[in-house]
């Protein structure tokens, strides 16, 4: 009797180890190649490492960062891009998802087309957009041909417009992602609820406000958080389109990290900036998720 009981139990224990053993190489690689270098890299934030010498200087890099007006500017641009990206991407993504949920012939093709920008290389498409936005580029030529010469701008060289030009590209790139998330959210709303709303005679606006939007709350949380993270970390598009210019008008925290670290060779300073950016992304994302989750539970 005892043997019969202990037998299966023993097998169960040995079986439980198998998933861990299978996962072990991947977990080790993740820790060794991803987390450990990040932690070690983080410690450089407290040094004046310039590629050769590294001396422990405590929080001096952080004090320097907060005194640097370029960094303050970059912080403002980062918030500007992230905030607008979250709002515009999610509104457009939701509108697209709702439009592309209805059955029509080219629906899947349209969905693929809108999602494609997210799947393409951000850096490569950034260079294409840089060409499009040049003063003699296709956009101004089209505006000229349409008789809208007054609308022609030096999009990427105008300090007032450059940041919004980059925002357009970011929106183009990430709206497809939010569309997919909202499509999944919309698919998750049971058909019976749509039928119930139809039977209850709700207007399209009442249906959207009182039923669709509240039931999309989990999708909104995911989509808003992802777009916030992408907005705060905007780098590829900025680097390829303006490089942070003109006159630092499009500098973001991410481009500052790159510039200080790899252009100026200030590895310690760059690490401190990267640490601040990481902390900022983490804090804002967690705060946003907590807020949206709280809203979800209230719904």
């Amino acid at each position, binding site marked *: 009797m005892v043997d019969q009981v202990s037998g299966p139990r023993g097998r169960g224990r040995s079986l439980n180890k198998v998933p861990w053993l299978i996962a072990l190489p991947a977990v080790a690689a993740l820790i060794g190649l991803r987390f450990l270098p990040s932690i070690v890299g983080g410690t450089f934030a407290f040094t004046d490492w310039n590629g050769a010498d590294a001396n422990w200087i405590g929080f001096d890099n952080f004090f320097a960062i907060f005194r640097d007006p370029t960094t303050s500017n970059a912080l403002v641009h980062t918030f500007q891009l992230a905030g607008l990206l979250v709002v515009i991407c999610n509104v457009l993504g939701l509108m697209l998802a709702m439009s592309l949920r209805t059955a029509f012939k080219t629906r899947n093709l349209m969905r693929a087309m809108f999602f494609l920008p997210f799947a393409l290389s951000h850096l490569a498409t950034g260079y294409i957009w840089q060409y499009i936005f040049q003063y003699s580029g296709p956009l101004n030529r089209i505006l000229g041909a349409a008789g809208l010469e007054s609308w022609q701008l030096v999009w990427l060289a105008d300090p007032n417009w450059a940041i919004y030009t980059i925002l357009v590209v970011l929106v183009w790139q990430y709206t497809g992602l939010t569309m997919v998330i909202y499509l999944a959210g919309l698919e998750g709303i049971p058909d019976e609820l749509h039928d*119930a709303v139809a*039977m*209850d005679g709700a207007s399209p606006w*009442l249906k959207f406000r*009182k039923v669709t939007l*509240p039931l999309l709350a989990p999708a909104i949380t995911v989509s808003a958080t992802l777009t916030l993270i992408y907005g705060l970390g905007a780098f590829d598009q900025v680097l390829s389109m303006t490089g942070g210019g003109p006159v630092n008008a499009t500098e973001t925290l991410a481009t500052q990290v790159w510039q200080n670290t790899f252009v100026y060779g200030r590895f310690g300073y760059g690490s401190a900036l990267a640490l601040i950016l990481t902390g900022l992304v983490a804090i804002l994302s967690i705060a946003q998720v907590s807020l949206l989750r709280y809203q979800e539970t209230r719904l």
Partner: protein
Amino acid sequence: MASIHLKNVGKRYPDGNRAVIDLNLDIADGDFMVLVGPSGCGKTTALRMVAGLEEISEGEIHLGGELINDVEPGKRDIAMVFQNYALYPHMSVFENIAFPLLSQGVPRAERRDRVERTAAVLGISDMLDRKPRTLSGGQRQRVAMGRAIVREPQAFLMDEPLSNLDAKLRVQMRSEISRIQAELGITTIYVTHDQVEAMTMGTRIAVMRKGVLQQEGSPEVIYGQPANLFVAAFIGSPGMNFVTAELSRRGDDLVLGIGPQELVLPPKTLAQRPALLEHESGSIVIGIRPEHLSLPPTDNSAKLKATVERSEMLGAERLLHVSISAKPVSADEIMEAAEEVSAAAPAMLQDGSKGDEVALIARIDPSIVPQPGSTVELGVGLDRLHFFDLESGRAVL
């Protein structure tokens, strides 16, 4: 409150599949009409067409005399209770019940008043602030009913609303829904695959199969005078017993040959069913409800010898499973005929019939305990026999 008329209503899908074929139903004001049939028989599609949730391919639907084919669901003044309740999960019970009123632009104070009155009728006044996820199945069912009732619509549509409840609650809710419907007097179409629900709730029943209406009538008519093999087999639990018999005339009497045994039909049988003459000297299917086989036989009943197989004690009654030597109804020709009438009938007919043995079920007194293997004489209520044509499966009347 209003009458509902379906005139030659059909539903054809783009792939050519026809879910409902030429459906004609007249549902009087205040009627409780139950659409019953197996899965895929078209009953839910028919209901959804009345609701406006499904486009009508052909025919006309009238509500209170008005043609509503092209009227939007929300403007038909019809309320629907769904199989999975379809409660809005993020809204409280109050908000769920109030939502149709909000959609209609009913003022806030009147909304509150009507919701509270409806909740009182359904006994859910103490749960108005709760979310659906915190409610039991029965409570959700009541909320779904509340959402339908609060509108005071012209008609209720109910799509298998009890199918997610456990057996005990289902019985309770059955009478609850019947009570509310009777009190409000609102014309109701109720869809179910459960024939017990149909029999107990409906003032009228429409039996459907493969998109075609098989028979429509009161529960008594549907049970007592089934129009064909399908209706006979589908309605009743346990189902009707079927056996093939040879019909012949001996003098003035009609005689049914069931295997080696004979039953002499009383003269009034022929008077009641003159069409039996057309089957003289031929095979016919006879149907016997379990309650019309008695043990011991009553004095004036005909007798049929049978071998006891087993019995099931149900408390108030006992189901006696017996076998008789006779031609099973599972022969190819009757299976094909039954298939024409019903998808369910062949399986039901085939069940228990092997070789030249036919299985029958009798509903008897629970105090009688026949031994398995023993031979018993069952009384047969000859005036309660049903006759079906072997070819078409239609009742011989």
